[in-house]
């Protein structure tokens, strides 16, 4: 992940590099064009001056011919060649050849070939001027361009860093506040004032969102609690009426059985209801009684209560429980967690199966025999049950997970060697 400024800096750098790359040939073409134009003008001036100076001193044709030969010897860069008639057009061109004065170096020359008139005779004048080589010009331009390119990128980088600190400060503040926000604390965020339109808009939108979430959370929380709470009373009435029904003198055995089934269903609804209430309370963090508790004692208590149920199903129970295992947590919740784990093991172990309970200072592991692995995605989901035949509330493992989460513990499930393994790490 890269931050926003790095991303924009990258785009800017790319754009700048393309632009600078394009600028190198453009500069070169422009510079070269100016060069040649100036040199052509210069050559023209030299030609005019030569023509003028020759005509200024009157001399005989013989003398002139001799002077021109001499001139051509000492001035090979402006050769005068006799013509029978004037050229129709001047010509301008560049040549590359060895420079006789600098050794074996090939230089570029700009040439003007024009006709001049001396003593009413026609001559061709070839003026040559040394021009800088193309590759040298390109090299210098590239070097300068690169220098400026690096200066520009460095400038961007420094500016960006400064801007990122200053301009984005309100954004960073908002972000931190949103990060620190906890829905269950129910306190809305007060955002800092900012004079940047975008950030002000962001803060307004976030503020609305947060307030809405708080309201929705509150009403949901109240709903779960109220619904579960309100259900307790009709359930209690039903249960009591059934008790009264059971005492009727002329009750038949069939009617008794129906009443018994109804009672079982009622007990189950009451448990689902109570578990939902408990889940809501855990989610609302309504438990603050974390104390130092002895998990081994709680575990022994729970095993003692369930002892007859182990026997009933002829389950083989092995346990390795370390003494004096102390952890921080809510004792009520921890008890619910242990009971749910053990009862789950009892329910899902086939008769005469094995249950293994291990407790160390850092871990509680409950293993029980089984036939196939459980779907880890649905394991802790509310109301998703492994079997349709039993009448569990479908909330047992959700509760275990929520309790672990609440107390900062982790629960893990594995299936190996035909055994389900649940481990709680404190």
């Amino acid at each position: 992940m890269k931050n926003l400024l790095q991303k924009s800096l990258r785009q800017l750098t790319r754009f700048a590099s393309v632009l600078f790359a394009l600028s190198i040939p453009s500069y070169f073409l422009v510079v070269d064009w100016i060069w040649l134009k100036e040199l052509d003008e210069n050559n023209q001036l030299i030609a005019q001056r030569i023509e003028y100076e020759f005509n200024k001193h009157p001399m005989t044709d013989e003398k002139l011919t001799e002077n021109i030969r001499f001139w051509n010897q000492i001035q090979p860069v402006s050769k005068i060649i006799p013509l029978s008639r004037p050229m129709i057009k001047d010509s301008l061109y560049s040549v590359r050849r060895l420079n006789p004065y600098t050794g074996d170096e090939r230089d570029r020359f700009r040439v003007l070939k024009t006709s001049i008139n001396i003593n009413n005779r026609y001559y061709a004048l070839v003026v040559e001027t040394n021009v800088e080589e193309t590759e040298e010009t390109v090299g210098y331009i590239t070097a300068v361009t690169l220098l400026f390119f690096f200066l520009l990128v460095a400038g961007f980088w420094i500016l960006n860093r400064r801007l990122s600190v200053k301009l984005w400060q309100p954004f960073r503040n908002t972000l931190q506040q949103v990060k620190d926000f906890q829905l269950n604390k129910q306190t809305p965020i007060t955002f800092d004032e900012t004079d940047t339109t975008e950030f002000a808009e962001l803060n307004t939108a976030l503020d609305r969102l947060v307030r809405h979430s708080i309201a929705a959370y509150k009403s949901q929380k109240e709903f779960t609690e109220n619904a579960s709470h309100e259900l307790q009373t009709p359930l209690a009435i039903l249960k009591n009426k059934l008790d009264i029904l059971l005492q009727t003198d002329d009750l038949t055995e069939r009617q008794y059985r129906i009443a018994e089934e109804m009672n079982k269903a009622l007990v189950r609804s009451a448990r689902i209801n109570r578990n939902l209430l408990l889940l809501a309370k855990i989610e609302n963090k309504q438990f603050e009684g974390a104390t130092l508790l002895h998990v081994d004692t709680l575990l022994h208590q729970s095993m003692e209560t369930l002892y007859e149920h182990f026997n009933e199903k002829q389950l083989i129970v092995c346990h390795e429980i370390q003494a004096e295992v102390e952890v921080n947590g809510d004792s009520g919740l921890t008890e619910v967690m242990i009971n749910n784990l053990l009862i789950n093991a009892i329910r899902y172990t086939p008769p005469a199966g094995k249950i293994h309970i291990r407790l160390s200072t850092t871990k509680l592991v409950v293993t029980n025999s089984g036939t196939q692995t459980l779907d880890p995605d649905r394991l802790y989901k509310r109301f998703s049950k492994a079997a349709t035949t039993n009448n569990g509330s479908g909330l047992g493992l959700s509760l275990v997970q929520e309790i672990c989460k609440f107390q900062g513990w982790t629960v893990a499930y594995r299936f190996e060697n035909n055994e389900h393994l649940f481990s709680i790490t404190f």
Partner: protein
Amino acid sequence: MKVLIIEDEQELAKGIVEYLSEENYLCEVAATFAEAMGKIELFNYDCILLDITLPDGNGLQILETLKQENKQDGVIIISAKDSLDDKIRGLQIGADDYLTKPFHLSELTARIYSLIRRRQFDNSNKVRQDELEIDLLAKSVAVNGTAIALTKKEFGLLIYFIGNKNRVLSKSNLAEHLSGDFADMLDNHDFVYAHVKNLKKKLTDAGCGPYLKTVYGTGYKWEG
């Protein structure tokens, strides 16, 4: 024996009254906080059933008033709130017992039975039925003067039966009484049968009469 039922839910109060009246309890109902306060000021009760959430006040306040005025009425809180805090607070203030809704009327009757007898100081916290004698405080049982050893669960069952004399107690009801919260989570309620069988055998072996009868195939009734 006088029982005051402080409960705003009419149907619930009616059911409790109906069930308790058969046990020769004299029942009065108070549906509001104000009504309840009026009654406890004027009369004394052997037992008060107290719902914490009342439309016009908190039941715990009634409990506080009772304790401030040094009243000796036994109090059982019946609450829809299954919260440990409320339970602990209620018991700290001085309630004798705490029952969470929904509950079986037989459970309530057994609790009232034990509560009233535990609070009597004229040696009547001993229960007698012919050759059977139960000491509620010492938690001991004797038949014809010979003590018999019962497990904690068997003793609890016996008290439950005695507290619900001549009542039909279904298997699921006993399962709830024995394993409390877990009853519905266990698919099999046969453990009830095992406990009842053991209790029956110990009583019969000691020479106790066949008071505990099986009804409707899986239910039980203590006759006396």
